[in-house]
């Protein structure tokens, strides 16, 4: 049955249904409903909720809980996610699974509290130090966010990587009808033979670490990480093609801008302009092949990327399109949101 839920609350419930039993967070707008909901719900399912003294503490609690084998999660918004970067890098280095939600607001600095997409680089290129990536999703509806986070802990466990959900203030605040999936049974989750569960368990000592002094050892670890990322790129890429079959103009956008762009495609089609939408759902690994496929098509004239930033994802779009077609960009910042009409206007000015 579908229920009406706020994005933040639906995401929190879906995380619990997906097996999350440890949540550590620190308040920041516009994601406060996630920790609020968790504080009420975690005790009901026998889980742990801690409002930590800072974002740095929260991410390190995730590090600890994940190391002990728990399905652990934290959420925050842009400035708070910046504070977590050191911990995220350590978690990646130690190959621990966890889920991190970023309900992005506009920046830089404290910025504002309205929606933004300026954290794309931070999420997909590595916001912390060192060579690492995270499996990163940019859901565009509450339902999509729910479905992604429901399986996010399985994905994190499978690859032993953090999963990052890159939302924005709008996705967190919006209410929509959602189908919340049934509770997963933690007894069915695969055993974590590497987890530090206490003295006397297992055959060997288990150590969680991200320090490798010997260059060859560290290189081996780094290679292992990137082998995993390669597998992720083969198996986990998700993107939505909307009316791209006969499209001459490929609009591209992710997250909430992705759904706004869908409205724009509908309007443009009504006016006889052959527009389509390519919407990445995984931001890392990036759906390169989808872009390449479209870029090779003769009838495709151009790509037009829309973001709530000065142009971040567009760099990956351009790398994928590889100069085969012109790739234009339109962005708004400061918390201003692109409307379907803005997109229609921008596209029409190129068509005429």
């Amino acid at each position, binding site marked *: 049955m579908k229920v*009406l839920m706020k994005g933040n609350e639906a995401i929190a419930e879906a995380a619990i249904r997906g097996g999350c039993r440890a949540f550590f967070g620190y308040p920041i707008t516009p994601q406060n409903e996630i920790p609020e909901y968790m504080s009420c719900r975690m005790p009901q399912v026998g889980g742990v909720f801690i409002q930590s003294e800072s974002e740095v503490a929260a991410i390190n609690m995730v590090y600890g809980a994940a190391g002990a084998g728990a399905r652990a999660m934290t959420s925050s918004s842009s400035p708070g996610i910046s504070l977590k970067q050191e911990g995220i890098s350590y978690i990646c280095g130690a190959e621990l699974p966890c889920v991190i939600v970023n309900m992005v607001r506009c920046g830089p600095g404290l910025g504002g509290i309205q929606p933004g997409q300026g954290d794309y680089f931070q999420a997909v290129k590595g916001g912390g130090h060192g060579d690492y990536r995270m499996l990163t999703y940019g859901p565009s509806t509450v339902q999509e966010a729910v479905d992604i986070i429901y399986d996010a802990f399985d994905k994190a466990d499978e690859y032993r990587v953090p999963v990052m959900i890159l939302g924005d203030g709008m996705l967190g605040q919006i209410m*929509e009808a959602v189908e919340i999936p049934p509770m997963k049974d933690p007894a069915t989750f695969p055993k974590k033979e590497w987890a530090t569960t206490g003295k006397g368990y297992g055959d060997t000592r288990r150590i969680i670490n991200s320090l490798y002094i010997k260059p060859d050892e560290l290189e081996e670890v780094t290679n292992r990480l990137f082998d995993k990322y390669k597998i992720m790129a083969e198996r986990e890429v998700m993107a939505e093609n909307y009316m791209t079959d006969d499209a001459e103009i490929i609009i591209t956008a992710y997250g909430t801008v992705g759904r706004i762009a869908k409205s724009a495609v509908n309007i443009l089609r009504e006016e006889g302009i052959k527009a389509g939408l390519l919407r990445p759902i995984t931001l890392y690994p990036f759906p390169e092949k989808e872009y390449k496929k479209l870029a090779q098509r003769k009838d495709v004239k151009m790509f037009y990327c829309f973001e709530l930033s000065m142009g971040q994802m567009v760099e990956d779009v351009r790398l994928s399109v590889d100069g085969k077609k012109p790739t234009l960009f339109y962005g708004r910042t400061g918390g201003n949101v692109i*409307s379907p009409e803005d997109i229609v206007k921008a596209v029409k000015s190129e068509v005429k």
Partner: protein
Amino acid sequence: MEEKIIIAGFGGQGVLSLGQFLAYAAIRDKKEVTWLPSYGPEMRGGTSNCSVVISDKQVASPIIESPDCLIAMNKPSLIKFEEKVKNGGTIIVNSSLVDIKVQRQDLNAYYVPLNDLANQAGNVRTANIVALGAYIQISKLFTKETIEEVIKEQFSKKPKVIPYNLKALELGIEAVKVSV
């Protein structure tokens, strides 16, 4: 069918919850809906608004550039949003608090003394439900029965306030019947 509504007023006038009532009604009628609040460092007495999109199909954009209907619970809201309403659209004005008229000639303006009718219903806090009554009577988007069910469901933990709200709904419906 796709109906876009902006509801705006002072914080505390029940602007956001009015939008939620519409969203709950939409779910009840198996329609697709998005409810998007303006969120910010706003407080009681500040301004507040929400955007509700109700559709037969999945709602693509929750952002409303030009609404089919504006419910203006106070004067700043009317001034701010009047120009955005689409051609031939509807504005419901809270004439208890707004002493100006809709400027545009192409719009269907309804002046409803929301606060006075809410007082008549027994509680000034039901002004948003009066507006809801007026809205469903004008738009014919939901039946009175649907909204009554939503009110009963949403106030199930505060049963004392249900009669005021049902009365407010009734008064809202009647108010625009007269003016038509």
